[in-house]
């Protein structure tokens, strides 16, 4: 599994960090999401799917390889 973050779309809501704190963080200065783990383990996939679903900018994709 690979996580893709479309950074210019990010609106800095931080919803992804709430949903998947092991995979996402926010930049201190402007809150734009940071991808901590591009290839999360299977145990994190549920959290990432939640983050994809709650992102209010549709800026996250989970690509199943």
């Amino acid at each position, binding site marked *: 599994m690979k996580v893709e973050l479309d950074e210019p779309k990010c609106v*800095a*809501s*931080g919803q992804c960090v709430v949903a998947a704190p092991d995979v996402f963080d*926010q930049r201190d200065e402007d809150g734009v999401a940071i991808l901590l783990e591009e290839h999360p383990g299977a145990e994190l996939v549920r959290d990432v799917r939640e983050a994809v*679903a*709650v992102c*209010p900018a*549709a800026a996250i994709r989970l690509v199943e390889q």
Partner: protein
Amino acid sequence: MKRIVVVGASAAGLAAVETLRREGYDGTLTLVGEESHLPYDRPPLSKQVLAAEWEPDRVALRTPADLAGHDLDLRLGVAATGLDLAAQEVSLSDGAQVPYDGLIIATGVRPRRLPGEGAHVLRTLDDALTLRERLGPGRRLVVVGAGFLGAEAAAVAWRLGAKVTLLEPASVPLSHAVGEQVGQVLAQAHVDHGVNLRTGVSVTEVTDEGVRLGDGEEVEADEVLVAIGSLPNTAWLADSGLSVGDGVVCDEYCEAARNVFAAGDVARWYNPLFGMSMRIEHRTNAAEQGMAAARNLLNSQARKAFAPVPYFWSDQYDMKIQAHGYLRGHDEVAVVEGDLGERRFVAAYRTGDRLAGALAVGMPPKAIRGWRSAIAAGVTWQEAVHGATTV
């Protein structure tokens, strides 16, 4: 459960169908959408799309391939026209009757309008594309309503060089939502950028030349945008027997009747975190409630109350506004960080003895996540703002 129908193909409806599939539902799944577009995102319409920074394909919420993977019975360009609860059937504008075992209502809202012809509204992608064709240097735009949508559109039009007049019936824009002091700060941003903000004026109709005010004055414009709020799309439910009153009335599980749920802008549900019924027109709520409704529909033995901390953001000029919680009906506002005059602050909102919300302008978004946690935890006002200055 073998047949689920989701009515409404925007953020809430999309979240519902995706959640249903993710949770293992493999029966027939019908998604009905009144617009002919595949599901797309609305917040950028009054921002990047109106500013012509994004082309329409950028607002697609999912790729066609992602959607195809959900094996949907997708019916776009078709509106729901009726609901028969006893027969468990939805009627569509193309004459079809769609039977269901479970139903999720996510039909959203439509813009309120004014009498008279020729004004723009800003709800759909087509609305945004139509308006942006008409904006440009020197064009005179009148925006009726200085709420978040009107304010964002005014800011974009100003940036495009338009001469913008913003008309607002309240004496302080947004004061009912964010309080007078914060409302004044946001209003001042329009003034500082040279937007002609006129408050305390009512607009009675759209005319050939512009708009007419309550006192008879006519304000001339090349284009008029009416942004005076929205109405829930519930007309198709009028004879259904569902309880409808400023939205589809639901319990804390987002259930309106047995196996009938509502989500997103159209849903009025009881939020146990705040102990009150609410209807929230925020983008994040649409997705979260679509997911919650889908899960509760599938897991009737293990339903979970939907108790979110609402969240919204707004981009105006160089300001990023973010708010967590439920600000309306607050009893007190306190600036807890920063300075109102610098348009860089966090304001906390008290309702009763509780911290009900927090709104930040120009602050690092990460820094206000702590406020979200405090609201979710239901902390008292004293705990939350100890030492802060009351405005």
